[in-house]
Every structure is written in C-alpha cells, then in structure tokens.
C-alpha cells in the first residue's frame, strides 16, 4: 500500500504535556479523522507533521520522504487549514489570491474565484469583517485551490453552519475520489466524520487510545444503555469501557454479535463517534 503520510512513533515532550508514540499511516485515497478533546495533542501532531515544531523521537514521512527534507515542489502538493492561524485580517479575498499565486506555481485562479462565488465569499471585504464560518470557508479554499495531493486540516469545520458543513464534506469526498489524494483532519465535532472518514484515531492526553477503520466501528462496535439497577448484570470482560450518565450506564463493546449472544435481552445499537469518544475518554 502506498502512503501519502506516515507518522511513526512520534514523541514530543513539553514541560506539562507529552505526546507519546503517535502512529498514523494515511494511504492514498483515504481520509483519517484524528479525534480528541481540546488539548489532547491533535494540533501538536499537526504542527510536528508540518515541521512547525521539532520532536524528540520518531519519524514523519510525507510522500515517502522525511518531512524536513521535502522540496518546495513537494510542499506545494500539501494543502493546509489551521484553525488558529491565517493571513492578517486586513486582507481581502483578492489580496489573498495575489499572495497565494506567488507562493504556489499551481495556483488555480479560476478555481479560486469560481469557488469564492460558489461559497458566496465577498472579494473586497477584509477578513476582519467575515463571520467565523466565512473565514473557515476561505481557509479551506486556500487549501484546495492549488490542487494538492494531501490535505492536512486542523478543525476545518469549526464555526461552519450545517449546510456548509455538508458542502465541505462533499468537497472532501470528491477530493479523495481519484484514489491518489488523502486527507488527515482533526476535529472535536465528530458528527462531521461519520460519513467521511475511512479510519478514526482517538487521541487522549497525548496518546492514541484507539485506531480503527470506520467500517469496523459500523460493523462490530455497539452501545448498550442499561439502567443503573441493571448495571451489575454485565461482566467486566464483556465490554471495553462504560460511562455513567444520569441514571444510566453506557457500555461500549467491540464485538456486538458475541455480546448479543451472551445478553440476548439487551438492545445494542450503533455508536456515534461522539459517544465513542466520550466513553473512551471519560469511561471506566
């Protein structure tokens, strides 16, 4: 299998935070979602991939080459959305086009302006007058208008309304449909990933707690809701983690068919990624 991005045993130590042995393998044509609560290490991982910070251990390969050895031409094949960083807010969409065409040989002005129109982004209005959703739209547009092969997106759906989130998910699906392009995206809005990703990586306190294909979640994982007084009937070995919420216990299981055989009277349903994240992070 060919990978557009490989992160192997990435370790970064800060005084009060440690990112430990992060492994991500992103094949061509696939989308991986990196999920975790704020401060879990998602952005640190992205920063390390983009060479914005040094790391203590591990290696990062993009298009098969160490990330710090990439040529400009190779870096031009990457599209970036960073949640907390962009151009100065006094610039407008026209200015950004003028800048970006100097930074990318492949900058596609027609695609940029056509998509601006489609996204209903004004050309001459400074970014400071944009809503957070509009700012995110132009960030996403800047990430795709040079027709990259790898998209690295840090919280790309933050601040977007449901309609645009739907549009953007369509856009990302089209992006990988050529089986050559890939996307790594972090988010804490897990609902966006439900119909988008091929693989989900849950990260908590700097460690990967679960790395799993989405299809496996759909086919094998399940959630069982049990009232507190029935809690003791489920044995510890039969579930991964459970979370108490109000008067109910939520059990996460990784083999729903087996579980159903053991407990035929209990109802199992498909977990959402949000529920999985909550139970994996907060459950016992």
């Amino acid at each position: 299998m060919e990978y557009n991005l490989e992160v192997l045993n990435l370790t970064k130590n800060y005084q009060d935070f440690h990112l430990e042995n992060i492994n991500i393998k992103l094949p061509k044509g696939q989308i991986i979602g990196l999920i975790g609560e704020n401060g879990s290490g998602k952005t640190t991982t992205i920063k390390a991939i983009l060479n914005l910070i040094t790391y203590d251990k591990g290696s990062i390969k993009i298009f098969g080459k160490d990330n710090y050895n990439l040529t400009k031409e190779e870096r031009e094949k990457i599209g970036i959305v960073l949640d907390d960083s962009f151009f100065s807010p006094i610039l407008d969409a026209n200015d950004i086009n003028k800048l970006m065409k100097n930074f990318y040989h492949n900058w596609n002005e027609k695609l940029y302006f056509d998509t601006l129109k489609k996204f209903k982004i004004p050309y001459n209005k400074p970014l400071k007058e944009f809503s957070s959703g509009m700012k995110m739209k132009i960030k996403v547009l800047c990430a795709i208008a040079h027709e990259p092969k790898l998209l690295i997106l840090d919280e790309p759906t933050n601040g977007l309304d449901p309609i645009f989130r739907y549009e953007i998910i369509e856009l990302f699906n089209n992006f990988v449909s050529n089986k050559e392009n890939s996307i790594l995206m972090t988010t804490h809005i897990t609902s966006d990933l439900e119909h988008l990703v091929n693989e989900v990586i849950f990260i908590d306190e700097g460690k990967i707690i679960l790395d799993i294909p989405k299809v496996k979640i759909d086919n094998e994982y399940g959630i069982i809701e049990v009232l507190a007084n029935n809690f003791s009937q489920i044995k510890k070995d039969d579930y991964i983690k459970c979370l108490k919420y109000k008067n109910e216990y939520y059990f996460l299981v990784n083999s729903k068919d087996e579980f159903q055989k053991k407990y035929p009277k209990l109802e199992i349903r498909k977990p959402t990624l949000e529920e999985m994240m909550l139970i994996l992070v907060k459950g016992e």
Partner: protein
Amino acid sequence: MNTIKGLLLKNLYVFKNFKGNIIFSICMFIFLITLGSMQSDIFTVGSILFLIFFGMNSISSFSYDENADSDKYLLSLPITRKEVVLSKYLFVFLNSFISILVGILVSFIITVLVRGKVNNIGDSLRICFLAFTSVSFLMCANVPCIYKWGVEKGRMQSVIIPALFIFLLGIFGSLLFILFPQLYLNIDLLYVFKISPYICFALNILFYGISYLISLKIFLKKSI
C-alpha cells in the same frame, strides 16, 4: 523570488489599513514644509521628518502578523523560515529607503518652488544619509528583539538594547578621549563628514547583515 515578492506584498498590504492616515500625514507634511520653507531652508528637516514618520512604520507589519499568528500559516505553505526573515528585512529597508527618497524629493521640490534653490545640497544629503543610518540602526536593533520576544513583550527590549549599545559606545568613546586625547585632535571632522556617505553605506550593510543573521538564528530555532 516569487515567494519573496508575495511576502513583500503581504507586508505592504498592512498599509492598506491606514492609507487614509498616510495620505493625510503626507498632505500635512507638504503643508508644513511649504510653510517652513517660507521662513528658511528646511530641506534637510523636511526629508528627515518623512523618514522618521514613515520609515519606521514597517514594525506594524510584525504586529499584524503576530495578532493573526500568520507565521504559523506561512511556514506551513511552501515558504522557508529564511524567506520569511529575509522578506521582513527587505521590507524594513525598502520602507525606510523609500521614505527618505520621497522626503528628499518632496522637500526638494517645495524648497525649489518656494525659495528658488536648495542651499548646500551636498551637505544636506549627507545629513539625510546620516539620519537614514541612525534609523537603520534602530530598526536593526528592534527586529531581532521582536523575533526573540514578540512585538508586545519585545517593546521594552527594543528600547533598552539600542540605548545600552549607544551608552556603551559613549563610554568607549569617552575612555578613548581620556586615554588618547591626541587621537581626537588628529581627526579631521570635516573630512569625516565629507566621506560620511561611504561610512554610512558600510554601516548600513553591517547593521542589516548582523541583525539579519541574529534574527535568522532566533527564528530557525523558534517553535511556532
């Protein structure tokens, strides 16, 4: 080269935000220089005023970048840290240089229109060049402080470091004067003034060169 052009353009766009103020200030300066020229030849003062007022505005581009955390975004594009630093220095230099050039041009035109000619134009230009070098020194002391501590935190250091440097230079000069008074008596100040453009040229290269290398070293090691 295109990358540097793009980065220079990005810095230049900062002025969009106060283009009204710039136009108003230029008009005010033109008015004041015209008024002053009616009394006496203020060609040098007018040129230096332009340099001081407009030539140091380039620092605001650091401020805008810091507020938008632009460096992080820029470095994730196909742009190197070296290019970011180089573009800032080019911008700082060009901004000061264009400011003094415009100042000289405006003051020259007004002085000639009002008074018919500029007195001692050679000496006046030498003084302008000295002023330009002083501004270069201040800017070159400021930029590494900004890279090290940021615009806000580096504000104090940006004042203290050049002041300390001038203070130490003063002490060094005084010591030389006390220890070797003959040395000063032998210096032909008029000759030094005559060759000052060459000295200034060399000093500018030295200031910008050293400052660029310090800033680059800081920025290469910086976690963004």
